[in-house]
């Protein structure tokens, strides 16, 4: 019952935010177009790079396109739903967060609901086109497992990035100011996981498995998708993100408990 009510509230929040943005229609469309264009430029960059290449460490052009599109989708969805966490430092500084604390309603719902931004969907079109291109270029054998793997990689990635945004927001409880350190983990990861993580070498692979589990939504399931391994259970690695999310949630809760208002 509680869940249903919360969903209803979230939809209402999203509708109000959308209405607000739609007051400036031209600006909205230009922004969606610009975000689409930026993602499209990155796609062209990959195409140019591969014009003189057949493979990087065993990965073909199609394989890289798959990685690029899935990470773009995950990130775009995460930005769409988790934008509230991204602009959270402002909420704390302006004292808006104190207001949220007074309301008898889930905090996270209020934070992410109040900043739902449809304009973030710009890169989705690029990502979708790239996904189709990537699937056509690399010979995937279609069965239930591959369908599951693609979906799990995208959705798992989305939750991974939402978790990271949440960690970033939790840091604000302690530092107030925005620190750009987390940018390396969010934007950096989006930027650099257009290539399968193992091309970066062992050190990066270790970091991306044990510190922030990027490999769970990219490298391991990708091996199943491209038929590079017989270990079918790698396809279920994205489920591990749930553990990561729980850890992020605990950090967030710890932050909320220790929050001292910053006035103004």
């Amino acid at each position: 019952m509680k869940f249903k009510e919360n969903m209803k509230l979230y939809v209402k929040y999203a509708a109000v935010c959308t209405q607000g943005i739609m007051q400036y229609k031209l600006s909205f469309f230009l922004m969606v177009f610009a975000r689409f264009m930026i993602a499209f430029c990155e796609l062209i960059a990959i195409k140019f790079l591969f014009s003189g290449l057949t493979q990087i460490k065993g990965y073909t052009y199609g394989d890289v396109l798959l990685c690029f599109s899935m990470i773009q989708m995950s990130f775009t969805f995460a930005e769409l739903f988790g934008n509230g966490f991204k602009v959270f430092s402002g909420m704390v500084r302006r004292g808006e967060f104190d207001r949220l604390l007074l309301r008898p309603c889930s905090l996270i719902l209020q934070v992410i609901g109040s900043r739902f931004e449809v304009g973030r969907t710009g890169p989705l079109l690029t990502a979708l086109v790239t996904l189709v291109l990537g699937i056509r270029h690399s010979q995937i054998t279609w069965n239930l497992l591959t369908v599951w793997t693609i979906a799990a990689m995208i959705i798992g990635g989305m939750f991974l990035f939402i978790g990271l945004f949440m960690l970033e927001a939790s840091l604000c409880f302690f530092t107030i100011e925005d620190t750009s350190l987390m940018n390396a983990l969010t934007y950096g990861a989006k930027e650099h996981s257009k290539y399968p993580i193992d091309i970066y070498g062992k050190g990066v692979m270790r970091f991306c498995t044990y510190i922030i589990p990027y490999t769970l939504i990219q490298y391991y399931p990708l091996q199943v998708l491209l038929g590079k391994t017989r270990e079918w259970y790698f396809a279920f690695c994205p489920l591990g993100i749930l553990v990561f999310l729980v850890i992020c949630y605990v950090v967030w809760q710890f932050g909320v408990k220790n929050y001292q208002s910053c006035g103004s």
Partner: protein
Amino acid sequence: MKKYLSFFKLRFATGMQYRMASVAALTTQLIWGLMECLAYKAVAEAMGGRIPMDYTSIVTYIWLKEALFILFNTWAADNELFAMITNGDVAYELCRPVSIYSMWFSRTAGARIAEALMRCIPVLFCAFLMPRAYRMTLPVSGVSFLLFLGTLLLASGITVSFCMLVYMLSFFTISPQGWRMVLTGAVGFLSGNIIPLPFFPKKYLSLLELTPFAYMQNVPFRIYSGDLAGAEVSRCIIKQIFWLVTLMLAGVVLWKQAEKRIVIQGG
């Protein structure tokens, strides 16, 4: 005494806050640069001898890009100016007995150069201390270093005059943010921020060389590592001067147009 101590503590804490922020920014940039180096290492291995720009030049290019990114980031334009244009405070600027174009140009250029100077030192320092495979190299010769500095100045001038065009265009619209994003969105890609321009296929590269974007960061960064040398350098410098003058003229013309039809709303 106690109150002075707490003032001290307060200021110290604020200072530390900023230090934390700059350490964080530095770490982010180093990680970013290092990841790019690793990616190009894999690319270089895959391409072998056919690579259009040798690996050490790429590494140097990446570190210069990280160290000086603020000079060439068209997105990070002066937000105060945009605010002035939208909220009408620009009226005060119009009262001053100076040319708006020159004033804003020098203001933008000054802010960028100051910030770049401050940010580049720690990044370059770390880049020279990286493990050998990812280490930034010294310029190939004294002459090429001087040419690097000269073309760097011209290139940042071109970037600033491009930003000026964006400011001037905002006079013609009520909500400049959307236009600004569209105008600046592709510049990073076209000026070699995502992949260095030598990686572009010949056909597209020759088209790109007809635009000012090929004469932004592309020229100085490649001169530094010796990737761009000989007669090519002087040709690039001439084109840089051409584009700097053209873009500035275009900006001034646009400003004259804007000045005629400017409407200050509210206030």
